[in-house]
């Protein structure tokens, strides 16, 4: 029966893993390309409304974001559940928008300034009053290109 009884256990051939780093790298590059850096930490709850006739925002560097929504859980104790505006990383009032837009525009390259777009990321349950105030402020700041952020309807 010596035929089957091999002395010195046969070890499995080792899997060649030398291409594994390359695989992971290609995954990495894929994600670097299709994703964008998160710019601010959201302090308001934001659920986009849906629409069908959407356009993509072209150049990220030309876009300024304004978030509107109900403050997240941790801020609700101080601020209540009224809709609030978030500019960059802090809550703001409508009166601050004009200065914020002018400041943002000043930090852009001069040739890009006319193309400046303001993206309004407004929660779908927000009342129109606050949105209108923002629009008025944007008009006064001459930021006339706006974009109502929305999600594609499935």
């Amino acid at each position, binding site marked *: 029966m010596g035929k089957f009884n091999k002395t010195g256990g046969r070890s499995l051939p080792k899997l060649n893993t030398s291409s594994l780093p390359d695989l992971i790298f290609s995954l990495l590059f894929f994600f670097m390309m299709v994703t964008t850096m998160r710019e601010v930490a959201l302090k308001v709850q934001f659920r986009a409304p849906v629409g069908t006739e959407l356009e993509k925002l072209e150049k990220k560097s030309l876009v300024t974001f304004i978030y509107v929504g109900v403050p997240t859980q941790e801020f609700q104790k101080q601020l209540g559940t009224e809709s609030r505006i978030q500019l960059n990383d802090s809550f703001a009032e409508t009166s601050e928008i004009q200065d914020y837009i002018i400041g943002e525009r000043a930090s852009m390259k001069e040739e890009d300034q006319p193309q400046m777009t303001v993206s309004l990321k407004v929660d779908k349950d927000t009342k*129109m009053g606050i949105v209108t105030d923002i629009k008025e402020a944007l008009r006064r700041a001459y930021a006339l290109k706006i974009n109502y952020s929305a999600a594609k309807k499935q």
Partner: protein
Amino acid sequence: MAKGKREVPELNSSSTADISFILLIFFLITTSMDTDQGLARRLPPPPEQNQKSDDIKLKERNVLTVFLNFQDQLMCGGEYIQVTDLRRKAKEFIANPNNDPKMPEKTTIEVPLFGPTEVTTNHVISLRCDRGSSYEAYILVQNELVAAYNELRNELGNSKFGKVYAECDEVQQESIRTIYPQNISEAEPKKYGDK
């Protein structure tokens, strides 16, 4: 001297995979996948100081008033309608196919590629909303209005050039835009009651 060539010892690269995994995970966490999409709009410039009021007198037939109240009910051209009917109404209003005297008047202008065409250049869709109406309903209405324009433009592109508006070249798009200019006015809302 030893026989045969001495081999260069291979670099142990088994940890490269781990390193790139860490990088991958870092990028997964710090980035977000969503591409930003939305309805593009242009706001009118702020009213001038010496301008008395910004309601320019428009002929009544040229204006389609769309009003959204605080209960998200929609009124269009004086009657109560559903959002789903808005697209059809808006299309009828913009194009005015039957030369209805109640619909916007047509003027004949010279359009490149089309020649003289009757166009409702002066039409305005005036979108009003209450301060208490919800943003979701507002976007829905805006979306329907933009859809109405897009459908009309696509229909025109299909019949004239055999392709939809987005696939036409610059010159063709320009002349289609001349025929169906997007005139949506977002007037300041009135305060009816509390927010």
